[in-house]
């Protein structure tokens, strides 16, 4: 439903040019939650602003359904934007207006009669769980409540798409979970597509169906979130995933003398990624039974991505080298991704 076709955005400011987005093509499907993840400065915000053309791409086309947005003039574009809600890291509520008036802001312009608007606003506030705050001012609300108001405001014109630029990055972990839960509910209830921009891995894991990884203006990998985490194909994707998870801190201990990973007996450390139902512990006990190979677990982690487990183990395998080789082959045969780290 949203299609970005070879989008490039270059900022030129005096003599300096910044290639914020480089040749990005991707598609957001109807009703899905699509994540765009990457380090700060990767170009995520610029890319999402290219979707509603707050930023005009230097090159490339943006399609919403069959309409080419990049071909529209400003007036037509403003109409389209009413059908695309957007929420922000810092909420961007109008401080001089009450919660009610903030949600009314986009509605007022549609020419809907006042009593209909009132009904609609109360309905929206009900949906985000803030019906008792309609007369409060933004300054009287917590961060989570502000974001709820912003969501209600973004949904007031019944958009088909909700764009979220770091919508949970200014919130504490608990509030983040609540907002993510709300987004998920809205996605299911209203059947709207949601584009989630974030640098937080946990956000993508919690709610996204598919995601793209961005690095230095490029999308390095794009696919279902589970595949992305289980089997990142791209080197930089892997790098990003490592940096943003506990594996990163484990890998850092490799160069530390005296750490668990500081081996000098010719044995190796293997990194195993297993998906689905098999569990790491069972596997380790089986290779001991079958090959008399001992597994010393240096690192272990299980993630649940949209409810499916994804396990990661770093093990030091000890035993007769020939047996170790057989054990590794056995592990591979079980469908476990295996990589020798050291």
């Amino acid at each position, binding site marked *: 439903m949203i299609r970005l076709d070879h989008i490039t955005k270059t900022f030129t400011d005096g003599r300096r040019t910044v290639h914020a987005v480089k040749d990005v093509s991707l598609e957001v499907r109807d009703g899905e939650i699509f994540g765009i993840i990457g380090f700060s400065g990767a170009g995520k915000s610029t890319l999402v602003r290219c979707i509603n053309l707050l930023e005009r791409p230097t090159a490339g086309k943006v399609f919403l359904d069959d309409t080419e947005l990049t071909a529209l003039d400003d007036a037509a574009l403003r109409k*389209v934007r009413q059908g695309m809600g957007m929420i922000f890291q810092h909420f961007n509520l*109008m401080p001089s207006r009450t919660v009610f008036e903030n949600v009314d802001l986009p509605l007022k312009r549609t020419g809907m009669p006042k009593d209909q608007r009132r009904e609609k606003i109360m309905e929206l506030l009900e949906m985000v769980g803030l019906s008792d705050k309609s007369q409060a001012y933004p*300054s009287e609300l917590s961060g989570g409540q502000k974001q709820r108001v912003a969501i209600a*405001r973004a949904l007031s014109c019944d958009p088909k798409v909700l764009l979220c630029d770091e919508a949970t990055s200014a919130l504490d972990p608990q509030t983040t979970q609540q907002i993510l839960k709300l987004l998920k509910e809205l996605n299911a209830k209203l059947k709207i597509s949601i584009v989630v921009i974030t640098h937080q891995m946990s956000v993508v894991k919690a709610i996204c169906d598919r995601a793209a990884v961005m690095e230095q203006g490029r999308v390095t990998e794009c696919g279902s979130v589970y595949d992305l985490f289980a089997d990142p194909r791209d080197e930089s994707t892997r790098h990003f995933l490592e940096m943003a998870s506990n594996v990163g801190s484990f890998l850092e201990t490799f160069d530390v003398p005296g750490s668990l990973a500081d081996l000098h007996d010719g044995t190796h450390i293997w990194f195993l990624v297993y998906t689905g139902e098999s569990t790491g512990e069972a596997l380790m006990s089986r290779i001991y039974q079958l090959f008399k190979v001992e597994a010393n677990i240096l690192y272990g982690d299980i993630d649940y991505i949209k409810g499916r487990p994804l396990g990661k183990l770093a093990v030091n395998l000890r035993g007769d080298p020939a047996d170790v080789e057989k054990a590794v082959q056995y592990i591979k045969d079980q469908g476990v991704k295996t990589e020798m780290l050291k």
Partner: protein
Amino acid sequence: MTDFINTIMPNFEPLKGEFWECFVQTLIMIGVSGTIAWFLGVALGVTLVLTRKTGITPHPLIFTCCDRSIDVIRSVPFIILMVLLIPLSRLIVGTGSGLAGSFVALVFGTVPFFARQIEQVLSDLDPGLVEAAQAMGFSPREIVFSVYLKESIPAITRVTMITFVSFVGITAIAGAIGAGGLGDFAIRYGYQMGYRDMIWLTVAVILIMISIFQFFGNLLIKKTTH
């Protein structure tokens, strides 16, 4: 009461009528030129913010013209500006002197200063609010009125109060080109005739005027800040 006034201001009784006339002239200067200058200043400040490079409708030519004119006009001392603008005033209001002749000079003397302050106020507004409005599909006109101006009411009131004080100051100077007003009254009777009590009276009336203005300004700020 009359005895009391005559005791502390022995010169008031014979000048009562003239004082009243001058006071009304000052009010007219403030009312007419002040109102015109306020709207022009806001419009110019908004234009600067919209047309600058990072504005929502960038336009280098318009921006540079406004920006430079403000700097030029601001650097001319008001008393010289008044003389300089006499031909323009004749063109616009038909006369370069008297009460009507002061309007053009007062507007030109206030607008650049006020426009800069408005520009500053609007620049201080959280750019996220403008971004949110753009994302909702607001047109530039709607953004000016519903976001820039609406969300800056307290700050605009504050700079209006600041400008008002210096504006009252230049209405007094405008007396020099025969505009009349309290400044003219103070010069004629306080300075040339040496009536100290009339100077004190003028000062008191101006102070009260400014205080009343600030009282309502502060009230508005209080009501619109949340």
